[in-house]
């Protein structure tokens, strides 16, 4: 039962990163690829109807984490207090930037909201990557299951870590580059003309960087947290995951060169899912490794899970709820399918 909920939360997080990832990425490239007001509106229209729904996956994943693994939620949210609060502020600014820009009449303020949207998207991508880095690297958990990490200490990986050290900065950069490529490909799918060309160029330039960073990330992870290899050694099937990751990277560059934006976007989505599943597979059943005394202090799905009855009841409503949610998403994406146009209602 705990394993099932671990998988559910992992799937929800992956859904969040794939979905909100493309609008974060679109935000990150927004100022550089879209120069005219019309181009900016096109990007906003491409993500406008869906970004809020995408972000709900984060809230729903957070809620599900709270429900299924209360101690993990309590420990990690309070331990990552400062960066989480900053993520909240950035999410708030970004939502305001997207939704209220259209209400601004003066070009000075439109420009200001553009800047807010772009900067908050870039920073969020880095923060999310660093957060994942922290979870993989481990945190200084106390015997009571709690910890508190400052923003940074000496940028070294060791017993006295901060949120930011060289490893988590690396994972943050990987996330940013990945989402820039992901967002570019989404905008390429949704637009035509010059904007489409420019976003393809961004994805083309991002690709070698993504490849190098992926390999660097894998090597660094094995160095920082050698236990990640244990599950792979025990279950050789796990090695399929890095194959999928590299395969989807290969598929991406093939599709970008062929001008098949949709295929390239799917490749990018598959890459993201592969990276996240790879991390989840490596950690399982640990959900937050302790940097000191990991054998006893690490939080696992077993020592953080809610009661059995609650978890069982949860399945009975979670399954219909997720089917409904998927239904809404299919409806929504179908309603707004195709290339965006500037006529008509909206942003």
């Amino acid at each position: 039962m705990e394993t099932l909920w671990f998988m559910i939360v992992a799937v929800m997080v992956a859904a969040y990163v794939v979905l909100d990832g493309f609008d974060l990425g679109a935000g990150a490239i927004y100022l550089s690829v879209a120069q005219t007001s019309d181009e900016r509106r096109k990007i906003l229209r491409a993500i406008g109807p869906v970004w809020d729904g995408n972000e709900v996956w984060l809230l729903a994943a957070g809620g599900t984490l709270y429900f299924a693994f209360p101690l993990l939620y309590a420990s990690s949210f309070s331990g990552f207090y400062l960066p989480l609060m900053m993520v909240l502020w950035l999410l708030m600014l970004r939502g305001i930037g997207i939704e209220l820009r259209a209400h601004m009449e003066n070009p000075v303020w439109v420009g200001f909201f553009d800047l807010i949207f772009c900067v908050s998207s870039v920073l969020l991508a880095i923060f999310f990557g660093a957060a994942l880095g922290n979870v993989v690297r481990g945190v200084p958990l106390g015997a009571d299951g709690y910890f508190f990490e400052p923003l940074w200490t000496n940028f070294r990986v060791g017993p006295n870590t901060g949120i930011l050290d060289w490893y988590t900065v690396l994972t943050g950069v990987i996330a940013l580059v990945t989402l820039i490529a992901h967002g570019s490909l989404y905008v390429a799918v949704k637009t035509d003309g010059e904007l489409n060309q420019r976003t393809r160029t961004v994805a083309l330039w991002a690709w070698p960087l993504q490849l190098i960073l992926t390999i660097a990330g894998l090597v660094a992870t094995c160095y920082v947290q050698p236990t990640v290899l244990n599950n792979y050694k025990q279950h050789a099937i796990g090695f399929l995951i890095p194959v999928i990751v590299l395969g989807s990277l290969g598929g991406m560059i093939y599709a970008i060169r062929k001008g098949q934006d949709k295929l390239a976007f799917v490749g990018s989505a598959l890459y993201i899912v592969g990276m996240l599943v790879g991390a989840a597979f490596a950690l399982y059943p640990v959900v937050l490794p302790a940097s000191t005394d990991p054998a006893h202090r690490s939080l696992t799905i077993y020592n953080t899970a809610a009661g059995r009855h609650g978890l069982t009841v949860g399945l009975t409503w979670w399954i219909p709820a997720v089917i409904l949610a998927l239904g809404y998403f299919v409806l929504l994406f179908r309603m707004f399918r195709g290339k965006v146009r500037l006529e008509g209602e909206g942003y």
Partner: protein
Amino acid sequence: MDSALLVDRIHFAFTITFHYLFPQLTMGLAPLIVVLKTLGLRRNDEIYHQAARFWARIFGINFVMGVVTGIPMEFQFGTNWSHFSRFAGGVIGQTLAMEGMFAFFLESAFLGLFLYGERRLGPRAHWWSAVAVFLGSWLSGFFIIATDAWMQHPVGFVGAADGSVQLTSFWELVLNPWAWWQYAHNMSGAVITGSFVMASVGAFYLLWGKFEAHGRVFLRVGVVAGLIFSVLQLFPTGDGQGRMVAVHQPVTLAAMEALFVSQTGAPLVILGQPNVDQRKIDNPIEVPNALSFLTYRAWKADVQGLDAFPSDMWPENIALLYYSYHIMVGLGTIFIAMMLVAAFLLWRGNLFSARWMLWILLLALPFPYIANTAGWMTAELGRQPWLVYGLMRTAEGYSKMVSAGNVMFTLLGFLGMYTVLGILFLFLVRREIEHGPEAEVSSGH
């Protein structure tokens, strides 16, 4: 009092109070927009469609504010109240996760269609998108109320070996009688905000002499809904909620009424200042025996005063609790009187020319917000010193690993951010109102 605890409490109180300024209008306006759209379809009258579009624009701005100020709420349980989350997550994690899964997905998916899809969808399907947004916002309200109701009156749980509580009965949690009274009372309060805001803007247009046809629609819908829900707010919902408190939290009732001494035939204090040190009311204006009657339906019933309970069970801030409760009830009473007069004038056909009444309706706008806020302060201050009534004290629930300085840092951040958001909101809504309901699109970019 530990200083981190104090800052954590202020942090939560400030962010939740500011947040709830927006959802109450979201939940209150959503059914009224459905009413406007239904009238538009039935009567095939463009005025109602324009009215619905106008309120949808206000709704959109308001909704964004509600979403962005709502995100921190779900996170704060973990960041600032981690010991509470660990203790109670096995139970209230259910309702909070259900809010995300059932309500947020529904709302967020249909909001875009509702705000920007009228032409794409056609009138019927667009009506359904408005209904979906209405349902989503009211579902969201239910799950939050069910969470708070469990903290007020915990049911359906068992204590586990590690000191936490775990769910034993899902249905007891969802059918908690406290939750249903509180939900009815709260949603009625939200519709009061929605209808007062609508009537206020209508009155503004008539006094201004512009968009008068729309103003009359706003007034008609606002006054009728305002009267119905002001009455429902008192009876049965307020009465039912009050009896929940009397049965399950008698010490809270005593503190709300500032009844220091147990009495047979207890009076109802209408005005007066509680003097907690001397355990009496200064300058009281009272209705004899009325509290006994309202609570137990008998003029001479015994009502327990604060002296019947050990003082470590008393709510900590009796004066603020007393004022919150009295402001809520006082305003609620005035709302009924005001809407009765307005509805009478509407019925007689005099409302639209009665400038004095239009002025009252215009200036009434802030008061439902104050009443709703005071109501929530009554609920939450009344629960003190408990975080989960009878199970966990507030002083045990905060994040002990997070220092007061860190919490102060983020509190200041929220103060600054919310000041900017509040100004932006007022600015944007004021401009929508000045542009009026005839503008087709809010602005073109």
